[in-house]
């Protein structure tokens, strides 16, 4: 779905208004205001402890807000009413199941809770097992499943009834690269039919499949915008300079010298290479090459990197400054 345009008011699937959660003296979520339009994949980004899981638990009604409110399809979540109406599918970041059940049995119980019966239930369970790649393990006890298989089963039980809203907490954190690719592809395919809110601290995943992202840090919402807009607004162009082995010992002095090059705003020493941030890449590029040539620095690589969400994230959370320091 394209980003929200002012003349295209979208239906709000998920809304948070001043949503706040305090655990004793810890403010886990601080007045979160958020609107997630219907049918998109929405990335909820932030480092560990940013408040992502707390926000998702408040949306499921498993936890109660200290202040503010959340709504799914216009229905307040505080008493779990959207759950009872089958409006949400939820995957916990560490999905746990009764270990004595088989994967198929679990999905059958979940399907019956959604009112499915007989042929419809069998068909939906078969489709879901196929979708999450667990058809072969369907009759095995969940107690014998690996972490990745449990996460796939978790996704399966969340999508079984094709809910209008899917809340996925770190859905790929326990998966190997192949499994991660499959699950991310599945999530992308679900967009349109469902609104997907998925939390992650793996920014490349969010960049790959999200239409829009929100960045949280220390319980506060730092930004909420379409991915492209964020990259344009916050990500500074970066040059990566990797000197050859003979010049590695000159990196500190080289970094110092490149800071004076026109158009350069910051130079970061990043483990055997330099990351040069610029606000004017057209001017900085040739000037950097000239400076390197003047100092007769041999190069393994000199490239302009495509700015990514990681750069945005580091900039917004101030962690690039910490890293530089």
């Amino acid at each position: 779905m394209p980003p929200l345009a002012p003349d295209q008011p979208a239906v709000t699937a998920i809304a948070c208004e001043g949503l706040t959660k305090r655990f004793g003296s810890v403010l886990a979520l601080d007045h979160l205001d958020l609107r997630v339009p219907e049918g998109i994949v929405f990335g909820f980004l932030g480092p560990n402890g940013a408040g992502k899981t707390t926000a998702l638990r408040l949306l499921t009604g498993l936890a109660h807000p200290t202040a503010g409110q959340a709504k799914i399809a216009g229905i307040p979540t505080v008493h779990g009413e959207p759950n009872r109406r089958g409006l949400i599918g939820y995957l916990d970041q560490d999905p746990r199941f009764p270990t004595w059940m088989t994967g198929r049995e679990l999905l059958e119980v979940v399907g019956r809770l959604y009112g499915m019966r007989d042929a419809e239930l069998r068909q939906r369970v078969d489709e879901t097992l196929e979708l999450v790649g667990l058809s072969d393990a369907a009759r095995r006890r969940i107690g014998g499943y690996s972490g990745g298989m449990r996460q796939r089963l978790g996704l399966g039980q969340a999508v079984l009834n094709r809910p209008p809203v899917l809340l996925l907490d770190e859905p790929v954190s326990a998966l190997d690269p192949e499994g991660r690719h499959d699950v991310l592809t599945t999530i992308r395919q679900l967009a349109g039919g469902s609104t997907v809110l998925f939390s992650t601290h793996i920014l490349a995943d969010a960049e790959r499949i999200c239409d829009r992202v929100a960045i949280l840090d220390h319980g506060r919402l730092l930004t909420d915008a379409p991915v492209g807009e964020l990259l344009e607004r916050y990500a500074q162009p970066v040059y990566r300079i990797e000197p050859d082995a003979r010049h590695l010992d000159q990196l500190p002095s080289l970094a110092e010298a490149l800071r004076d090059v026109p158009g350069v705003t910051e130079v970061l020493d990043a483990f055997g290479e330099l990351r040069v941030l610029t606000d004017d890449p057209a001017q900085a590029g040739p000037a950097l090459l000239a400076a390197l040539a003047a100092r007769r620095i041999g190069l393994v690589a000199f490239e302009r990197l495509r700015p990514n969400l990681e750069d945005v994230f580091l900039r917004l959370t101030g962690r690039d400054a910490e890293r530089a320091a």
Partner: protein
Amino acid sequence: MTGLLPLFDKELREQWRTKRLLVVLIVFAVFGIASPLLARYTPELIRALASDALASVIPPPTTADAVDQFLKNVGQTGVLAAILLAMGSVALDKERGIAALFLTKPASRAAYLLAKLIAIGLTLLIGTVAATLAGYGYTTWLFEALPIGGYLAMGLLLFLQLMVYATLTFLGSTLARSSLVAAAFGIAVLAVVAVVGALPGIGPYTPGGLSAAGRSLALGTPPEMLIGPLLVNVMLVVVVFVVAWLAFRRQEL
């Protein structure tokens, strides 16, 4: 009561697949069989081992002894089973995140609790019925035939007694986040009920007081008090369950 049937089906399967139902069935049946056997042969055993003087004062076993043994053995084992079955039922699910799994589906918290309690009750009922039938059979074989209706009524009163302890422990399991705390709650309740049961005028209304009514019914004599203790204990199960639900309704999971 959204989702009661699928959740009850799941709980019942859990009782079977985790072998709880089978273990309860076997243990109760064994104690049901052993009670009349012990009542019949313990005096003979003591007589054979004791001196003639002591042997002469040991009275011959009676049917009442068999009923007393049954109530004592199956009652004690049953209370232990009730506490063990109920202690982790909710607390462990909360601890492991399984409660959250099902309660983010169209399932009310009342249905979630009721499904669990009914499954525990059914397991205890099956165990009690097995013990009662075994006890009746062996009592008839070794002593005399008692009125079957009265003996079964004793079994049902025993079951109600166990349900009171199971529901109280279930409340502990709902309030606590650990099954051990729930078990401690159940044992503390057991101790309190034992103390309260010793108070004159109150004793017959406690779960233990149901045994006296059950004994009379099994032996074919009218009990001194039946309807009052029966109603009080049924109400106790209902009220404790409602308290558990009220506590669970607003809990964060």
